[in-house]
């Protein structure tokens, strides 16, 4: 029944102390979908993505990833083959050369000594090269990661994900700290690569405009619940303005 489903969420709840981040949220994501997650800040987007990425556990409810419930995954490697995540450029180790940051996506398949050796003589460097070529950074292979610009670092993070090659990619505000030109560039690349690799993509975004332009399905969160979940064509201005105005009302109270 769940054969073609990438993610199935059933009644997920998560609270931080008094704060209800997600309340009884259910969701189904098919394989190969391109989904934008929108909503005012504090709506629970990050929490939801982290639960999908298995970095935080929900208080209650069930998460099924590619037909297997979360706690049935035996190793981080097994899960890393299914799901990969990029956040902002802070995910990279700035002190390392670009190639090592990219090859970190292979660590799940490497033993300790191969990993150690690779820091001296890069292993599987062809894979890293082709991944960097896809994101347009082939000439930066041996540069120090921290010397790259924010947008370039975000592309390095994408190259790492290409090397990791998971079935689903989660992105938490991948373009939050970038200027509009770079942001469009990154989103274009992210969606293009995901469809080339036939990956499922879920990205949380600040901007509705980007969500409409690059994605096919939009899920809006509001105070830890799904406010609407529609194909892009059906998302109207009224829906959007009520999504964000609710927030303002709350703040005025």
């Amino acid at each position, binding site marked *: 029944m769940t054969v073609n489903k990438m993610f199935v969420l059933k009644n997920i709840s998560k609270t931080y102390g008094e704060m209800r981040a997600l309340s009884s949220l259910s969701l189904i994501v098919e394989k190969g979908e391109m989904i934008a997650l929108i909503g005012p800040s504090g709506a629970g987007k990050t929490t939801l993505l982290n639960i999908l990425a298995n970095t935080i556990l929900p208080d209650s409810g069930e998460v099924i990833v590619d037909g297997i419930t979360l706690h049935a995954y035996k190793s981080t490697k097994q899960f890393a083959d299914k799901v*990969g995540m990029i956040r902002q450029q802070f995910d990279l180790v*700035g002190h390392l050369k670009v190639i090592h940051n990219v090859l*970190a996506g292979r660590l*799940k398949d490497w033993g300790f000594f191969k*990993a150690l050796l690779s820091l001296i003589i890069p292993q599987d460097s062809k894979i890293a090269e082709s991944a960097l070529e896809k994101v347009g950074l082939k000439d930066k292979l041996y540069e120090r990661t921290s010397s790259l610009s924010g947008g370039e670092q975000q592309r390095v993070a994408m190259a790492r994900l290409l090397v990791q090659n998971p079935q689903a990619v989660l992105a938490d505000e991948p373009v939050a700290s970038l200027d509009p030109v770079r942001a469009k560039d990154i989103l274009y690349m992210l969606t293009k690569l995901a469809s080339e690799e036939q990956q499922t993509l879920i990205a949380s975004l600040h901007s509705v405009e980007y969500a409409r332009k690059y994605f096919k399905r939009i899920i809006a969160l509001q105070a830890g619940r799904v406010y609407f979940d529609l194909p892009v064509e059906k998302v109207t201005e009224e829906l959007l303005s009520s999504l964000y105005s609710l927030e303002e009302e709350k703040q005025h109270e």
Partner: protein
Amino acid sequence: MNKRSYLSTILIIVFLFSLTSIQWNKELFHSGGGETLLQIIKSLFQPDLSISTLLLALKSAWITLAYAVTGISLALLIAFILGILASGVLFNSGFGRWLSFGVFRGTLSFMRAIHELVWAWLFVAAIGLSPFAAIFALAIAYGGALGRVFADILNDVPQEPLNALKSSGASKLHILLYAYLPMTASNMLSYTMYRFECAIRSSAIMSFVGLGGLGYQIQLSLSELRYHEVWTFMFFLIVLVSAVDLWSNMLRKRLIL
């Protein structure tokens, strides 16, 4: 502000009280102590600059430096291993982490609580007069101090890159190699350089357990009342320490990229 002035007052009272443990009278001085003092000060301005003394000073300075270098390099190795273990980054949680904090932090504290010269003396008593007594003493005292700081540095790194690596399927050891160590290496190196200067001074006082070097020469000249020579060796020590300090400062400034 109020709390602070309380603190200052308490500290001042404690200091004044401590002064009462000395009997302040002429008995504090050796008879003729004043003249000795004058002599010592006078010879400060006329250090012995004969060639033979200078050569001896140069050779002694090298011995002092060499022992400091061997001691601190061994200390670096010890601190690296114990520091990683004591930081708990290799342990998941619960028992392992608790054990690492308790056992390894405790070991490090013990190592650095005891002064290197005391260690040296204990080593001499245990293994006899050997260059290793001094080297091990330096390595243990400095290993403890460095290790403690290394552990703190490791615990202080930003979490995002670690989580990212973890979620891409990396193990604890992988994360150590690909995140912790590259992120902290320059800090660790910088702190080691900072302590290197202190190690020179410690190496000099190892003369007390029979090690050659500047400290030994100073001790010898003092016991033979050759104050002019004492200052020559002192100046060599000062120059050596300052040179290392300068190098370490230049390197540290550049390590913070």
